[in-house]
């Protein structure tokens, strides 16, 4: 089967094929990384249609910048960087919009719809984490999302965000403090 052969291809092979105009290859890239992008974007922006749009933009941006991908880092890291940048831009845009046109608080800028989960318990869990994340300062939120939702180490997070390791460590400890206070209220 055609799909099966693409599933076995390496990242670099898929990138090369996509650059040559192979739609199936790019389709395989989207399939492989869409859940990872969803965790980052929805984890940081909340579960809403806007997050879906940002997710779509991530792959459009990826497609147009594939020729810049040198293969020195993993493709997942490259995609993750695009997702983080677009999400942070959206957070900034919303902050600007709400500070200009609305009196809403920081965490009201985001939506807490949670997609139907298997059980009520799981739905509650996702909702709790979503609310806690949205209440965090965005500079802490990105670090928490990378670690908690994607399982990246402190070193990987630092590389991904182009931040010194010390900065990530100090933000992580401050994020933990902030999270403690947030969870106490939830």
């Amino acid at each position, binding site marked *: 089967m055609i799909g099966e052969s693409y599933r076995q291809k390496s990242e670099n092979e898929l990138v090369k094929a996509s650059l040559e105009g192979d739609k199936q290859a*790019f389709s395989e890239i989207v399939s492989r990384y*869409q859940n990872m992008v969803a*965790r980052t974007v929805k984890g940081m922006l909340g579960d809403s249609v806007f997050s*879906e749009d940002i997710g779509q933009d991530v792959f459009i941006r990826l497609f147009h910048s594939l020729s810049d991908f040198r293969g020195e880092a993993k493709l997942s890291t490259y995609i993750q960087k695009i997702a983080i940048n677009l999400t942070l831009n959206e957070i900034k845009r919303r902050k600007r919009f709400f500070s200009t046109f609305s009196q809403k608080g920081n965490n009201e800028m985001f939506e807490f719809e949670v*997609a139907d989960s298997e059980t009520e318990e799981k739905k509650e869990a996702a909702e709790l984490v979503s609310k806690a994340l949205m209440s965090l300062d965005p500079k802490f939120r990105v670090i928490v999302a990378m670690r908690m939702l994607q399982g990246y180490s402190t070193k990987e997070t630092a590389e991904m965000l182009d931040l010194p390791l010390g900065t990530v460590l100090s933000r992580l400890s401050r994020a933990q403090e902030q999270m403690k206070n947030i969870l106490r209220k939830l």
Partner: protein
Amino acid sequence: MKIPELKELILRSLDKESDPEKASAMLEEAGVTWKFSEGFHDRVLDAVFSTGDTVVRKIEFVRNLNSVFYRIALTGVAAIVLLLISIFVIQGSLSFDSFLGLGDSYDESIVYLLTGN
């Protein structure tokens, strides 16, 4: 997973010493994960490849416009050069008057031409 346990796990996952991969897997198991809605994959491909076609069309248009511009510009330059040569041959110089076709005219003849006296 009960809410107090979940809160504990969230805080533990942020410990510097914790294993982030393990904590993230446990949270995922507890239901803390997000996915895009059904049809996301197809929407992305539609958007990517329709945008791709638009970009290709735009690039082709700009390329065609450029080649047309160069042709017009080259023809224009060639016409100007020919005009200069013909002025030089006819008038014998390339002065400002000769550009205006006044190279061999006297002031009196211009006044006569304009006023009729």
